[in-house]
């Protein structure tokens, strides 16, 4: 585990930078470092999510840039990173204040996005006012096109509820047409931003795909016992079960479905399914379970990224937003290499440029990343992308999933 203290000036590359800058001119002469700041939930209810998807990638990236001798600038010189880190304590007011502080007091060159849809929105007006590009990864929102209009330098990289719901509806509808499934769906959702966004998108999407929703309930965040819902879903006659859930719910649903001997042919669970710990805890039982996200199992860049992530931070990345977070940092890094520290130019480059990242060739459309995996499935101990099926590296979907194996 590496841990960065605030203003922990990572000077490992200072000597190298000094050498390089003596060849290239300008940049390194008027400044000694590039300041990167971010506010992230290290405590409070959001710390669990931020701690797996966002923070480790920020640390990994900072370490790698430093090991490489610093951030490369257009003239080929390198400047070491100076990282300023704040804890937003899972409070919107703290996010706002921390971003103000980063922009005005610490005078950082770039600010990395906070974790979560709500906090990215809370921070967006400030990023906009001070002219910082905002690479919002851990934010699922259908309103991204409007936000892009409002905040020109905001980038939304994880799609919206409709994208995920539509892809799932297509999968269920096709399997029902083929006779694998019976066209009936039972679904539950967590009464919080993510769950409601997805379920409100899923209802029309399922109906448009001529699927019958036979059970549709929402449960409060923090629910620990899902037995009543599982029993109802089991009795409903649906053989597709969809849960737009948060990690603790996802884990509990998995365990309690096994107890209740609930074996839907298609099982789709929410956030947490793509965590490495999910497969570790459930072993072969994870196989066939669907969720959001996924990776291309044949991609060497991705496999290499996963190895480096685990080596640097001590934990494995998740199979959904982690790799995209890292890719967003690579884009920022490359845009700085091309355009320097001018935020305006960097933002324009991120919007229009094409980048080679761990995701492969990456290019934004209307400030949004659209080429991502909407549905993934656990296959052979990996969570692989299955939809959209025409996406390079897509794995074939396996349905129906096997019944729970008794331990």
């Amino acid at each position: 585990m590496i841990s960065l203290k605030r203003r922990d000036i990572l000077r490992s590359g200072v000597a190298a930078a000094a050498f390089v800058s003596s060849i290239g001119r300008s940049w390194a002469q008027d400044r000694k470092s590039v300041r990167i700041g971010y506010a992230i939930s290290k405590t409070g209810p959001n710390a669990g999510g931020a701690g797996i998807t966002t923070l480790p990638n920020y640390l990994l990236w900072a370490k790698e840039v430093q090991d490489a001798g610093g951030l490369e600038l257009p003239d080929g010189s390198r400047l070491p990173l100076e990282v300023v880190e704040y804890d937003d304590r899972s409070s919107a007011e703290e996010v706002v204040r921390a971003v103000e502080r980063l922009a005005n007091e610490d005078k950082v060159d770039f600010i990395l996005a906070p974790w979560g849809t709500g906090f990215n929105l809370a921070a967006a007006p400030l990023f906009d006012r001070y002219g910082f590009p905002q690479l919002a990864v851990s934010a699922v929102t259908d309103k991204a096109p409007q936000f892009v209009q409002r905040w020109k330098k905001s980038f939304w990289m994880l799609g919206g509820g409709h994208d995920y719901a539509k892809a799932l509806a297509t999968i269920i509808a096709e399997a029902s047409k083929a006779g694998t499934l019976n066209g009936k769906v039972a679904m539950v959702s967590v009464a919080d931003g993510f769950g409601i966004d997805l379920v409100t998108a899923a209802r029309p999407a399922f109906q448009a795909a001529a699927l019958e929703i036979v059970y549709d309930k929402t449960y409060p965040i923090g629910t620990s016992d899902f037995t009543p819902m599982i029993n109802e879903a089991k009795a409903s006659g649906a053989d597709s079960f969809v849960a737009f859930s948060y990690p603790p719910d996802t884990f509990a649903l998995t365990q309690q479905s096994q107890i209740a001997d609930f074996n839907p042919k298609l099982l789709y669970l929410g956030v947490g399914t793509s965590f490495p710990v999910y497969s570790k805890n459930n072993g072969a039982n994870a196989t066939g379970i669907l969720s959001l996200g996924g990776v291309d199992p044949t991609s060497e860049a991705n496999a290499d990224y996963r190895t480096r992530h685990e080596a640097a931070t001590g934990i494995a990345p998740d199979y959904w937003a982690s790799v995209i977070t890292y890719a967003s940092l690579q884009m920022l890094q490359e845009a700085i290499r091309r355009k320097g520290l001018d935020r305006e130019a960097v933002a324009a480059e991120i919007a229009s440029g094409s980048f080679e990242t761990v995701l492969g060739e990456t290019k934004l459309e209307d400030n949004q990343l659209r080429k991502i995996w909407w549905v993934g499935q656990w296959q052979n101990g990996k969570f692989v992308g299955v939809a959209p099926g025409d996406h390079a590296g897509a794995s074939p979907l396996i349905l129906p999933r096997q019944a729970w194996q008794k331990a």
Partner: protein
Amino acid sequence: MLVTAILSGLVLGGTYALLAMGLTLQYGIARIMNLAYGELIIVAAFLAYTLFATLGLSPVWTLFIAIPAGFALGWGIYGVLMQPLVRRARTPAGLEIDSILATFGLLFVIQGLLLVSFGANFTSYSYLNVAVDVFGTKLAANRLIALALAVVLGGAIYFALTRTLWGTALRAVSVSPVSASLVGIDVDRAARTAFALGGALAAAGGVVISMYQTFTATSGVVFTMKALIIVIMGGVGNILGALSAGLVLGLAETLVATYVDPGLTLATTYGLFIAILLWRPTGLFGRAAR
């Protein structure tokens, strides 16, 4: 369906009761409003997880380590942190505020230590997640353990409190510390014992729930609040009250989830809690006046 709902409600209630019984001892007898109670639960959960993940030790065995360790921890916390506050407190209200503030600080300290040592990630493992058939309803063995433990520990403590001299002394302290000391009861020691017992119960609860519930270094507050509600509903210091309030709450949540709307379970919890308080301002089994 009804039988299923009732049985799963009781099992859920067992977890709630197990989590609340320690707090009712700490608050009812030792008169310490322990806001860091949930953190003790989480510490025990991490202990069980670590032993399971590194040594493969069954959480059931961890109980035998955790319960004495929880007792010792409670004993220590009381001695170091609470005793000076109790000694200088002139009024019960003053002690209440002091203990809220001090244990609020303790909450942050424990949380911070957990964050530094385990990080903020969701922690979960699965143990004894096997179905047990009870009257045709499939229940999880790990949750049944929680229910059984709640009933056994609750019963044992109730028995000890009502049938032994030692227990009578503890109850005397809970009724009136001043009069108790007049009849020769070592109030300080009694309170310390009760607080330590509460710690032991919290540790037992933490170990058991870690088998089936996902937790993080910062989720202790959730447990404290659930426990507080049950303690208040059941009457402060009343162990059987906590047990039955926990079961009632579990039943209510499950019945509402089954027959009304799973979205209203928590609203039911708080609604029920508020209704009981308005109906009987000192809880289901509380004394008429404090």
